């Protein structure tokens, strides 16, 4: 291993910005801001945004460097796009920070959010089992704390605990899988693992390791049957935490596992696109995808709580994203990245609207959204864009994401294998999905507001974040090539 420290420092500039920013926020809060309760919130928010934007700039302009520090990190177009993407999603989630009347310790919240983002950017670039695990744990541990951050709400504590228990279990599986992989190949680098496994051929132990890894993947992506934490966490976590868990965490996790499965384990992929099916991870992923599509879409129909509804819709989207993972190694990662990123934008936006509304009262039931068009036309308009993008209505980005993923999957083998039929299932279920998405919009845009509901005041940072997210969804929908052409 050639220890190129200069290259490592260069490659990790975004992470440096984030960590230094987080420490600075904590220090300034301790020394100065905590004695000025009126400004505490604004200081944390401003510093957090500045360090995120600097990190984002560094990530976007850092360029592709290939393998860094002896192949611990891989900076290919996918890493660059994902790092920029997760930082952008964090930038959009942070302004939802509730003010200090509702969330004590805004500085700690911001700092932990930056640590989580550091975890995401490292996940995006990791090319080594150990680094991947550490990055994943950094992100996960931060998210557990964020989910349980609202100390006034028992639901938030429940969300944090549930997320932690499920997450800890998944991490244990993942570590077990990794240790088996290391035992089989005696290397931690993904490309070397791939080379080793190609030589050895499939062994039963490899498949045990695969199953372990896929359990953790299913958890991270909120895919059935590892989805059980999602509805409770989405329901109880503070809005910015839920937004981050649903968007940036998912994008980083998908990229990490896509790299792991295609970069490290591609000799054990198996076939699922055309018969006969052979054993490997692709058939298992296809199975998980099908289960998620069905469970997510059908489960969402029964929800009357808007956050739980978004959680089930997230499970359904995870199913479609997993189909994209199956195609990513053959037809390119562009469609998968585009789908995950634009889905993240729409979810951050949807939680942003919920978060902004919460300044005027609790938002849990669908009926809490009633008459939103009258209370705040801005929020109603943005919510319409986000929800319709989730539903996959052109010209919004969500449609092109689905289209690109489905096309890339069908290009594998048409309808001659189970994944082809899963695509048809996914397309059919999108009509089901439109029903529950329209239920949200019916409340927000059609129903008349309840008596004595005051108009909603949206803070300036939150309004800007929502408008940027909505604008990006429209712009990426009109010019999908801006992202698809990156790869």
């Amino acid at each position, binding site marked *: 291993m050639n220890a190129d420290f200069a290259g490592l420092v260069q490659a990790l500039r975004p992470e440096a910005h984030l960590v230094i920013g987080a420490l600075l926020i904590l220090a300034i809060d301790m020394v100065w801001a905590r004695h000025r309760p009126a400004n505490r919130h604004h200081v944390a928010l401003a510093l957090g945004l500045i360090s995120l934007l600097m990190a984002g700039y560094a990530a976007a302009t850092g360029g592709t460097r290939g393998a860094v520090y002896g192949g611990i990190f891989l900076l290919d177009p996918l890493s660059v796009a994902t790092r920029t993407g997760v930082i952008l999603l964090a930038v959009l989630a942070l302004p939802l920070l509730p003010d200090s009347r509702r969330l004590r310790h805004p500085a700690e919240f911001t700092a932990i959010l930056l640590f989580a983002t550091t975890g995401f950017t490292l996940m995006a670039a990791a090319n080594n089992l150990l680094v991947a695990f550490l990055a994943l744990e950094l992100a996960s541990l931060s998210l557990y704390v964020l989910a349980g951050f609202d100390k006034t709400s028992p639901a938030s504590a429940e969300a944090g605990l549930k997320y932690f228990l499920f997450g800890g279990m998944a991490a244990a599986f993942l570590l077990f899988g990794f240790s088996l992989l290391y035992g089989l190949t005696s290397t931690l680098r993904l490309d070397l693992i791939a080379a080793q496994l190609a030589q050895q051929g499939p062994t039963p132990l490899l498949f045990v390791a695969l199953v372990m890894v896929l359990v953790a993947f299913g958890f991270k992506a909120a895919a059935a049957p590892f989805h059980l934490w999602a509805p409770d966490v989405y329901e109880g976590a503070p809005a910015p935490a839920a937004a981050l868990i649903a968007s940036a965490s998912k994008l980083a996790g998908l990229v990490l596992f896509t790299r792991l499965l295609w970069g490290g384990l591609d000799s054990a992929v198996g076939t699922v696109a055309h018969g006969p099916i052979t054993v490997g991870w692709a058939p298992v992923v296809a199975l998980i995808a099908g289960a998620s599509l069905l469970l997510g879409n059908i489960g969402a129909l029964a929800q009357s709580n808007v956050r739980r509804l978004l959680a089930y819709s997230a499970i359904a989207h995870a199913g479609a994203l997993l189909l994209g993972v199956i195609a990513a190694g053959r037809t390119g990662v562009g469609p998968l990245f585009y789908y995950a990123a634009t889905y993240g934008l729409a979810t951050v936006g949807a939680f942003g609207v919920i978060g902004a509304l919460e300044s005027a009262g609790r938002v849990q039931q669908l009926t809490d959204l009633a008459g939103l068009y009258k209370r705040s036309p801005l929020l109603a308009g943005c919510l319409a864009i986000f929800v*319709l993008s989730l539903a996959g209505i*052109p010209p919004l980005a969500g*449609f092109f994401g689905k*289209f690109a993923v489905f096309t890339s999957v069908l290009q594998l083998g048409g*309808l001659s294998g189970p994944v082809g039929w899963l695509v048809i299932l996914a397309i059919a279920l999108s*009509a089901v999905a439109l029903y529950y998405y329209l239920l949200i*919009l019916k409340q927000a845009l059609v129903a008349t507001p309840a008596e004595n509901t005051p108009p909603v005041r949206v803070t300036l940072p939150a309004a800007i974040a929502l408008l940027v997210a909505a604008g990006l969804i429209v712009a990426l929908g009109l010019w999908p090539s801006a992202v698809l052409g990156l790869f």
Partner: protein
Amino acid sequence: MNALPCTIYVSFTGALLALVLGSRSAMAARVVALLTALTAWGITLAAATSFVPMAGLQELVNVPWIPEFGIHYHLAVDGISLTLLVLTGLAATAGILFSWNITERTGEFFALYLALIGGVYGVFLSADAFVLFVFYEIAIVPKYFLIAKWGSTNREYGAMKLVLYSFAGSALVLAGLLWAYAAGHATGFGFTELVAATGRLDLTSQTGILALVFLGFATLAGMFPMHTWAPTGHVAAPTGASMLLAGVVMKLGAYGCLRVALPLSPAAFVLLQPWIAWLAIIGIIYAGFVALVQDDFKFVIGYSSVSHMGFVLLGLAAANPVAVSGAVLQMFSHGVIAGLLFAVVGRMVYERTHTRQLADLRALPLHRLLPFAAVVFVLAGLASMGLPGFSGFPAELTILIGTWQARPLWALAAAAGVLIAAAFTLRVIAVAFFSRTGPEREVPVAPAASHPLAPITWPEKVGALLLLGATIYLGLSPDTLLDWIRPALQSPAFHAILSGGAS
């Protein structure tokens, strides 16, 4: 001619403008909407005057959009699309005139209305299946809000049903198109590329693709047994929206069947042809019978739309130049007539009497209270029955002649539908407008007579005269449109399908 793509942009800009201005003043939104619709219609008419009919599509715009999938933003026009563009302009203008009385959230109503129209223009102009699909889906969402917010009777149910059926139909289309594109290794979504890609597959796949795409589009055209959304949705919709939905949006489905689905695979089409034809015939007759027994005035019109759209589908199924040109003519004719019927029922009668129950209307001497409405409805009813002198006559006659050339049995069965249409139309005219008001009826009438109904306003008169003028003009001179349509059917895209039959 080259200004045609502006119809799309003008409509969407008008929608934004109506939304912004509508929050200040309702009248501003109305005027903006009317001007927008008139401008777009003017563009189509200007294009029509300089239109030179020829085989094949005439290019308007063709720029790469998503090169990763070979998708081009490709707009083009031929006689068929021009016919429907002119219809869209006419129906949109009339619909806005009949929506003049919308007072609740006026700006948003017209914004959604214009967005729907923009999507419709886009579908008719698209020369790339993907672009067509995108515009088709853009047109879906406004429908939900138009019905759910401004509709009547059971509106949220009707809106959701209509939108879910439309979306399920479009999902079938998407599945079929992606199947053809991916499995056939197409280089893009242009019509010819898709046809070539489908041709590379085996017959089973070809049949599957054609069935999916055709079924998807036919759902929106109201083909039996996927027609049930149409009466429910159109009855629940506000008048202007019913006129547009029944008049134009149902034609999107039929247009998609003709433009995208039929040319995909001649071999598979031969297999599916009898199925399509018989479903169309069942639709004509079944919907006719259902219309005959409705108690709700607007449901009669709703089912009559399904019945008349059955003729369009039958014309497409017969697949010879005569029948298909008749089908396109019927699309135009039905667009105008359905608009008129819905306008009379929903706006002129319902908004004044506040009932659509035929039993209640029977007690009102409407021909005396609303003579203008009665005259318009009788004329529209005659046109709808297919009497000579109105556009319904050449359209249905051409379809029946073409169908006879293909399969006489189909033509005979469908001709029965014409008789049923006459029966339910005459019944509803008699019951709603000319019920016998003898001496024993005078007493219940008295309260209504003591509160005279509001007079017909000028926007209603202008709108009704526009539509009546169109149906009579076409009834007298159907060749105006047929001269555009026939050359378009000579194009290579249609040639493989439209075999046989004397042109």
